[in-house]
């Protein structure tokens, strides 16, 4: 499923510019080291982290995008880094559990 279509379906707020990405799976974690060790290329990262290191990890693993939960928003410097490496960031007021269930209901496995 296209990330933009999924985002529209789940009413996610786009924080960066939009990039055409395909969602391959989902990984939920707030630990950058855990993301490095276990996420897969094409995964959508769901996290509460808004630090630039999350973008570094997402870029390293070629993740399709990041959903930041609980209404958190990354700073302008982080947005700039994400746009440079074409990692779209979305925001949602939902917590990670709620986001996980919505993703599952949307057909993401």
């Amino acid at each position, binding site marked *: 499923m296209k990330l933009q279509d999924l985002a529209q379906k789940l009413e996610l707020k786009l924080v960066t510019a939009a990039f055409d990405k395909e969602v391959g799976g989902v990984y939920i974690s707030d630990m*950058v080291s855990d993301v490095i060790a276990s996420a897969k290329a094409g995964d959508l990262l769901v996290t509460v982290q808004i630090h630039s290191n999350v973008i570094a990890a997402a870029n390293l693993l070629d993740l399709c995008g990041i959903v930041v939960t609980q209404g958190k928003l990354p700073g302008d410097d982080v947005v700039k880094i994400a746009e440079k490496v074409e990692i779209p960031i979305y925001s949602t007021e939902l917590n990670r559990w709620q986001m996980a269930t919505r993703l599952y209901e949307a057909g993401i496995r």
Partner: protein
Amino acid sequence: MSSESRAPRYEMVNVRGGHVIIEHDVCSRAVRSYFAAEPNPPVEEYWEGRRLWRHWGAAQSVQFDVRDTTSGEVIPFRELLGLMYYACCREDRDLRRLGELAQEHRISIYVAITYETAEGEPTRLPQDKAAVLNGLFNDRVKDKSKKILILPDLFNLYREMTYGQVMIDFGLTAMAESR
């Protein structure tokens, strides 16, 4: 089999959780860090020769090895503390400027930060192991117009940092070079 669909040459294996321990020598002010796989990281101070090592901090992290699937060889990366992304450096650093130039060509630069020796001296990741890491991470990238470039610490970042930027999780907030 097309080149786009061939199996990756390198894979991450033996992933183990633990803590990065950072200590300083009370006598000489040397700082060192190392990976401890124990569930509870050591915090007591202790003598080692003429050095009195005192706990400074600990953070959850992981350690891994890399297997070359063509030969079966497992290459350990016990010295690897983390990977610092160029954009997490201060703007006045050469690495930052180099990284900006490279990024315009979709090459993302990371620097491999390594642990210090028992004496608090830096160890630089050997070139051949940097090549393995480049193989590992580039094998995983689906967008082949993008490249990951992992460099040994040619910029002496160890002078200001004793921990990695990407693999370390320090109290659930990642670290950045102070501005």
